[in-house]
């Protein structure tokens, strides 16, 4: 039996311990904001926060997160999340949107660790989040805007 917190609520899982966290989030918990992209940690669409750090849920066995705190795009909160949400809407960042929950989870985690990231720091943190619409330029600009908005 695996026990963990999902967006602030205690959850248990009593199935195959190799089941990916992503499958539990989407198929059992019905939280479909977190996306299945590649399934092998190459695209970042499945990014969640595991104990406050970005983590690819598609290659995270559920048995590994016993006792951990998981936050998905549905449960993200705090000043960084609010700043990112505002900045994303302000620049109309998404095109198709499929990768964007992963992008946002990575962006929020970055701003929690580096409140005023440089271009290089943004590139370094976001390099594992692919966007087939190539919205990278707007993603980077929105992260700068979010950082600037938190300064005031």
């Amino acid at each position, binding site marked *: 039996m695996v026990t963990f917190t999902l967006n602030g609520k205690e959850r248990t899982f009593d199935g195959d311990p190799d089941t990916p966290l992503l499958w539990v989030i989407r198929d059992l918990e019905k939280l479909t904001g977190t996306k299945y*992209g590649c399934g092998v940690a190459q695209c970042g669409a499945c990014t969640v926060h595991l104990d406050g750090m970005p983590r690819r849920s598609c290659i995270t066995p559920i048995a590994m997160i016993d006792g951990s705190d998981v936050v998905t795009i549905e449960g993200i909160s705090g000043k960084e999340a609010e700043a990112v949400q505002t900045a994303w809407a302000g620049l109309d960042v998404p095109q198709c949107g499929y990768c964007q929950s992963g992008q946002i989870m990575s962006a929020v985690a970055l701003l929690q660790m580096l409140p005023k990231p440089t271009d290089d720091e943004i590139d*370094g943190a976001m390099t594992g989040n692919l966007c087939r619409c190539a919205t990278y330029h707007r993603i980077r600009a929105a992260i700068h805007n979010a950082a600037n908005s938190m300064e005031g």
Partner: protein
Amino acid sequence: MKITLLITGIVANCLIVGAGILLAPASVAQNAGSLRPAESFQSIPDTRARSVALFEEAGKVIQHPRCVNCHPATERPLQGMSMHPHQPPVFRGDAGMGLVGMQCNTCHSEQNTPVVGQADTLKSIPGNPAWHLAPIEMAWEGKTLGQICEQLKDPKRNGEKTMAEMVEHMAHDELVGWGWQPGEGREPVPGTQDEFGKLIQAWVDTGAACPSP
């Protein structure tokens, strides 16, 4: 609604195909190979020649991609038996743990983890509690065995280790030991860590002579 679903499906497929392009075929486990026992080198009468031969045998491990991939000469680790640049593109960062927001543990955990529901060509994601890159001064990529040998003896390039500490590191370090337990779908380095440690010990005991650079 149908159009929305169609577009979502196309994009999902694009992401999957795109990611697939980035994935190099996983190396399939082959014969792990073996190491000659350290004591078998006693037949070499010249001490220096014996020392060199011992290190050359240990070099089967040291120069194996499983080891060199995390001793890169650049800021980027390598992957696979082809030693291609790591995908996704990750970089050294502080203490070799990756850059802020994209650290090793974004994907790698404390143990090798199975990949389920995927093609048979990718069996597992490698992991270890100490998963990180070797410092740049310990880079092995692109170097000859002789150059690596001299590097291992240089405190400025071996983490200020004494030779006794070097033997201990090679023989018992857990991350070094991962090379023999690299997870399903990955070729392990030859022999065992115990055999490798004994080769390194015998190499040190015979004067730690190095092959020609």
